[in-house]
């Protein structure tokens, strides 16, 4: 079984692979120091891993247990990109509704020719 994981999720997995089962609280402490995530952010990512089935929650103390091995995990390719629509400021959202579209191969090459011609 191969599982695609985002970098953020891989960070969590890395801790579990290295240290074995770890309470969520401890994971949050580690990520806060190493990556600079807030506790909320870490818990959001843990939740995503749980939803994907990459980890399992064990009680008591919300201990996280890895369900996939390092070999089964794969970096997520940037295919489900979000900022084609949105880039931290609200404008892209509207732009996307009104014509900000992904460029086709022809359009890309046309733009390249345009640059050449203007150079």
């Amino acid at each position, binding site marked *: 079984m191969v599982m695609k994981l985002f970098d953020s999720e891989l960070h969590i997995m890395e801790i579990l692979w290295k240290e074995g089962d770890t309470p969520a609280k401890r994971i949050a402490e580690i990520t806060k120091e190493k990556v600079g995530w807030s506790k909320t952010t870490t818990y959001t990512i843990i939740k995503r891993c749980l939803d994907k089935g990459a980890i399992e929650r064990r009680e008591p103390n919300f201990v996280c247990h890895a369900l996939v091995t390092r070999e089964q995990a794969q970096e997520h390719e940037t295919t489900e990109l979000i900022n084609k629509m949105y*880039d931290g400021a609200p404008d892209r959202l509207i732009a996307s509704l009104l014509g900000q579209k992904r460029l086709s191969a022809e359009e890309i090459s046309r733009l390249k020719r345009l640059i050449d011609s203007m150079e």
Partner: protein
Amino acid sequence: MSLLQMSISASVFILAVMFMRSLLLHKLPKMTFILLWGVALMQLLVPVSVQSPFSIFMAAEHLNKMVSAPKLISSPAPESSTFMDGTMVIMPPKPPITEHVTAPMTPLKTASQISPFVWVWLVGFALCALFFIIPHFRYRKIYKMAVPIRNDFITKWQQSNVLWRDVQIRQLDHISTPLTYGIFRPVVLLPKNLDYDEESQLALILTHELTHIKRFDTLKKWILAAGVCVHWFNPFVWVMYILANRDIELFCDEAVIRKFGENTKPAYARALVRLEEKKIGMSPMISGFSKNPIEERIISIMKTKKITIATTLLAIGLAACVVVVFATSAHNKTETAASVDNPTAEIVPALYQGALTTEIVPVLSQGAALTDLMPHDLTFNKKYDVPKLIDSLMASKYRAVYMDNEIYLRVLRDNTVQISKDSGAVWKTYDTDEVDAKEFAKWLLINDPIPGYSMKDVQSRLANGAEVKHLVFENVKEMYFIIDGSGVQIELIQPEKISSVLIDGQRMMITSAISAQMLKSFYDLLVSSNILSETHARQDYTDRIEYLEKKLPNFLVTK
């Protein structure tokens, strides 16, 4: 100024800027357009943001009035005064009583008619705001999952470009193009699939993002979004929103090229295209609105020129022209429009004040034109002993004395009504009709010409057997006389407001536009009717004039 007026006047300006932009986008420094959009935003937002939420309501109300009920604007005074006046009940000409039932309700109805428009606006505003805010918080959650980057070049670059705000540079694999978020603690996010070895491209990207941060562009974009939320019903504002956001980007590109030199233009443009190329797997969107923004951006980058004195002067001149011609003329227009509207807006509270307080309320001077003829009840003004005046009246042969431009009127102790049309020289007795007190009480309740404090009193007098007499004058003026042991109370219904003074067993009323001459005549009448002694009258007159001159700024004392 109403929201709609603001929107319309700003639209004119937006159109002008759009036109100028389409002609000169690549010719003028980009700063020009940023400033012009800023002016447009001020036009759209400033009066609203300065005023209270109530004012927004008022603004929307105006909007509604303009849309739905021009008739109400043209004749607000009589309709509202019907409801609010004390003694001087104003009715439309020749009003049969059945119509009175509905006429005074008009102000209330107007209020409830307004609300649908306000509600529609509020709902649109809320939806629009949610449309911006919900995705923002959803994506922000994802942005927070970014991880630190270990890259020597970036570390070095960061050390050489320090801002007073702490800028973080992180990596996120969810995104495909670089972005910046956060206004006060900005974070630059770089996509994972960026070519981190190509340092010149990295430097361009980071400089671009840092320029955004330095210029608070995220904040600008949010203010633009706020403009769209407030003016969601105006398509021009949406167009401005899109164009202004693009111009922020172009202005930023311009700065990057300035910094790195004109030679970098092709490299920079190519870097942009490369980033576009990497956006893979995106669902195709509806194409459409004008030219492809990327193309516009590339042309803009390639055409970036050194800013010369000539272009600067041209830009300043043109921008000044556009602002002066479109922004200020619109402003003037809105001012005149506002002055048409204001009386209704400002008078309503004034009328309510006049109606609901038991003291003399100096009517707000802004509303002068319409409040001139507001009756002022002097009865409860303790300082000038009106009760004593009423005592003198009750001790005399008369129960009420009334005066306006046309007639003098006295009610005698036996409730006969005397009228003089030649300033008191000849008095004639007039016949009155009897009106059923119960019917009148009902009519009064529905029409409510009497301010709240005296309605109860009048109703109890009517219930306790007060007699009601009715008199119709030739010019459709009507008078009701409520008569019982404690005296006579006059309710006047007239087609239009006229200056008048009244004293009856209950009150002394005076319209503020009365002349000093008329007040003098009134006191003369009181003397000639043996109600006041000459000295008493003179003293009372002087006190009254002094008080009115001092307390009522729009009291028109003509001598």
